[in-house]
């Protein structure tokens, strides 16, 4: 259940170019979060909260980890928050990735850039439950790569970079074909990538996690809708998503 909580910044590290990893301690959120859910994070001096996915859940230490790109003013300010400070967040927000009946099955994770963190969260959870994990991760360039070793611990992982400075040269869709068979895919990343991935994997069952600019983050303001074929013609990303079945929404 979504709550307004204060989280203690236990650790904040720049783990790749302009990319911060932050470990946040909070009992309620660490206990109830599901892979694919996000935090709606308040930043001093900013009207709107920032939605950031949960990348790791550590129930023992009562922490969750988030990874974010220092994109605009808000995330830049957040990256300067010191360990020991508290941040305010609404969370855990939205619905996570559905993953029933996957025992002994294989899933493919397809992530692009800062869309990768929630997939890691899912992969880690499912690997522990005996699901076989494969991953294709796309980055801009060599120094923006993160979590490669972590994914390789979960299963077979291919890295691509747009400029070829690391791993395969090109887009994730260029190498998906090499990944063999899998029962279901999960993808998160820039819209262009999601469109390419869902088109390419049209005949596979899969889930996409979407981004949109948000107001309330709780389903009240209708800022973050995405058109659907059914369900009254739209769904709210913050509340009904951010995860949707790939064939449910119009990308």
């Amino acid at each position: 259940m979504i709550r307004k909580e204060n989280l203690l910044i236990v650790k904040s590290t720049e783990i790749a170019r302009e990319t911060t990893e932050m470990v946040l301690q909070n009992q309620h959120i660490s206990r109830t979060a599901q892979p694919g859910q996000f935090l709606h994070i308040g930043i001093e001096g900013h009207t709107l909260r920032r939605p950031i996915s949960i990348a790791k859940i550590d129930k023992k230490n009562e922490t969750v980890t988030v990874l974010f790109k220092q994109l605009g003013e808000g995330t830049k300010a957040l990256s300067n928050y010191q360990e020991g400070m508290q941040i305010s967040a609404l969370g855990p927000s939205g619905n996570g990735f559905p993953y029933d009946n996957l025992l002994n099955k294989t899933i493919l994770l397809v992530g692009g850039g800062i869309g990768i963190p929630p997939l890691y969260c899912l992969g880690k959870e499912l690997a522990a439950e005996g699901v076989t994990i494969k991953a294709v991760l796309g980055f801009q360039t060599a120094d923006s790569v993160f979590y490669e070793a972590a994914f390789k611990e979960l299963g077979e992982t291919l890295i691509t970079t747009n400029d070829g400075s690391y791993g395969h040269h090109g887009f994730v869709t260029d190498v998906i074909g090499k990944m063999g068979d899998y029962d279901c895919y999960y993808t998160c990343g820039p819209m262009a990538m999601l469109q390419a991935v869902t088109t390419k994997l049209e005949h596979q069952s899969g889930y996409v996690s979407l981004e949109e600019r948000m107001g309330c983050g709780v389903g009240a303001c209708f800022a973050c809708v995405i058109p659907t074929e059914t369900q009254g013609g739209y769904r709210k990303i913050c509340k009904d998503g951010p995860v949707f079945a790939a064939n449910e929404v119009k990308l």
Partner: protein
Amino acid sequence: MSELAVNLPGLQMKNPIMPASGCFGFGREYSDFYDLQQLGAVIMKAATGSNRYGNSTPRVAETASGMLNAIGLQNPGVEKIIETEVPFLANYSIPIIANVAGSTLEEYEMVAKAFNQTDSVHALELNISCPNVKEGGIQFGTNPEMAANVTRIVKKASNLPVYVKLSPNVSDIVSMAKAVEEAGADGLSMINTLSGMQIHLPSKKPILANQTGGLSGPAIKPVAIRMVYEVKKHVQIPIIGMGGISNVDDVIEFLLAGASAVAVGTANFQNPFICPELIEELPNALSKYGFLSVEDAIGKGHGA
């Protein structure tokens, strides 16, 4: 009567704090955070004649001490609202205000009439000012005769008190207020958002798919206070004040300017508990500034 209570046409409120239209949906989401029973009243999201999808996304952008929105009046249509949303809110014994929007006089009339069906709605807020919808809103809200006309038609169609919500995007807010007062408005609600735009530099395009959007939040409070203050000098009907309220001093400032109650919009997004927190802090704030009650503070910024 308690120190926080306010009685306005159709609205017997135990306190003057209510969420603003469009910033609170139909209450369900925020009822997960607190008991809505605490609120002075609630204003629902805009209702139109039929189901509306609204604008393309992005629909919001952040600005200095504010935000822009161009939701485009997305709503399931007045019938569905009466059927599925009003009953949920009617579980709470707080006054419900329906925000009425439309692109034509006929649509306004139809929506207003529809709310006669239910006993659970206590007043209408007539949204003549939503700056996002090209084919309607903006014209009604910036021309005194048109505003008076739609007010008259809605008053006639409805058996509820009508609060006309004024747009700040006008040269002369006082003539707008006087025009709708003469046309029979029972109260005013002000202000709606200021029309604004933000351009996304990397893509060289307006951020909002709709290009322009409505500016809300603390940035606009000085404009709202000025308008409430000026209008208060010239009308007899009560004013529900709004625009940038984010703390209890802001509430007092609106009361001093002449508002009899206030609505809180954008601040809900930052802090879902803002309304109950303001309600809790209000008694102390009133006594800090030497007021016995909310009623005692209304209009006191106008001198003796």
